[in-house]
């Protein structure tokens, strides 16, 4: 089990010019705190759509590595998105599933089937072969480094602890989130 903030900080240490798409609520808040930068696309809604949105970003910019940070509850809700990811297999897409076993921002109840779902086998069964799990910081750092350097669609399941104390959400309105991401992509906006 990795402390939540340490897991996000381990990713922040490694990220350089990658585009990062976060899921809503605690994923957005934790990544905003760990490494706020224009190359981040924060989602405020809907739950679970970061996987599909990240796939769209990856298809639009095959020259850029795209990292999606999502929670276990959203990954379960968005399993069909993983089927679309498996079909397209973008070599530049890496998905992190931050698994704390609860709906952190949804009442803190247990995630459906918590502790019994094998995320790695599930994802591999869909056809995403580069998939593994990390349960301590050294495993996590090694896996992040390997998958960021890999020219292959990948999925990293991370066992993390519950959040300790509140983490404020990103201090940006949705339109601001959009424009900062557009600007980070060097003026490739359809209507700047």
């Amino acid at each position, binding site marked *: 089990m990795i402390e939540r903030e340490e897991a996000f900080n381990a990713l922040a240490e490694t990220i350089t010019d990658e585009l990062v798409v976060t899921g809503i609520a605690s994923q957005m808040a934790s990544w905003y705190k760990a490494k706020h930068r224009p190359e981040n696309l924060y989602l405020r809604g809907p739950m679970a759509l970061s996987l599909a*949105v990240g796939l769209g970003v990856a298809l639009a910019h095959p020259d850029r590595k795209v990292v999606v940070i999502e929670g276990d509850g959203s990954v379960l809700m968005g399993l069909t998105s993983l089927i679309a990811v498996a079909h397209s297999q973008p070599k530049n897409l890496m998905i992190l599933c931050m698994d704390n076993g609860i709906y952190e921002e949804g009442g803190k109840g247990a995630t459906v089937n918590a502790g019994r779902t094998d995320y790695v086998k599930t994802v591999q069964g869909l056809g995403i072969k580069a998939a593994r799990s990390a349960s301590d910081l050294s495993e996590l750092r090694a896996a992040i480094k390997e998958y960021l350097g890999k020219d292959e669609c990948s999925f990293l399941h991370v066992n993390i602890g519950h959040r300790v104390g509140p983490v404020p959400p990103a201090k940006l309105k949705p339109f601001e989130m959009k424009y900062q991401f557009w600007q980070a992509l060097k003026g*490739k906006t359809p209507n700047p």
Partner: protein
Amino acid sequence: MNIGQRMVPAMERAQVKVASGVPDNWLTPIIESLTAAQSLVYAPAAREEDALGICLGAALAGVRAVCLMQNAGALNTGGTLATLGISYGVPVVMLVTDRGHLGDVTVAHFEKGRAFRPFLDALRIPYYELTPDFDQRDQLTQAFQMAELGQRPVALLMTRSALEGRNA
């Protein structure tokens, strides 16, 4: 030429780079042509919310994207349209087969046809019927102009008359 062979050049003229969708039998020739096209990438989805999400992601990454689906599936995308499409103001074009109108009345389609346009009205999403000469009129490009001007999704509705090039 079938509608798929006409739709791909229309999308190319509109500079569409990413498309996603879920099949409907009216969409099949379009999806077949998109899958074979070299000028854009077509990413099939298993459900409509994913197709919309893929296109919203592509649009948020600065390229033009079109999602294709039937009105039944589009009715399932309300939360995504509200919280991402409209809240963020994302200019995507939805190409939706609007089933359940004249010449297309079955028990399965009837109520969807009655519900879909009020659904779009409730979300204040602009929608326009594709006409049989959609490619000559460059309606895909026009739809993107509307989406980008208004900074929100726009729906192009396909009825039987648009598909067959004649009135139902």
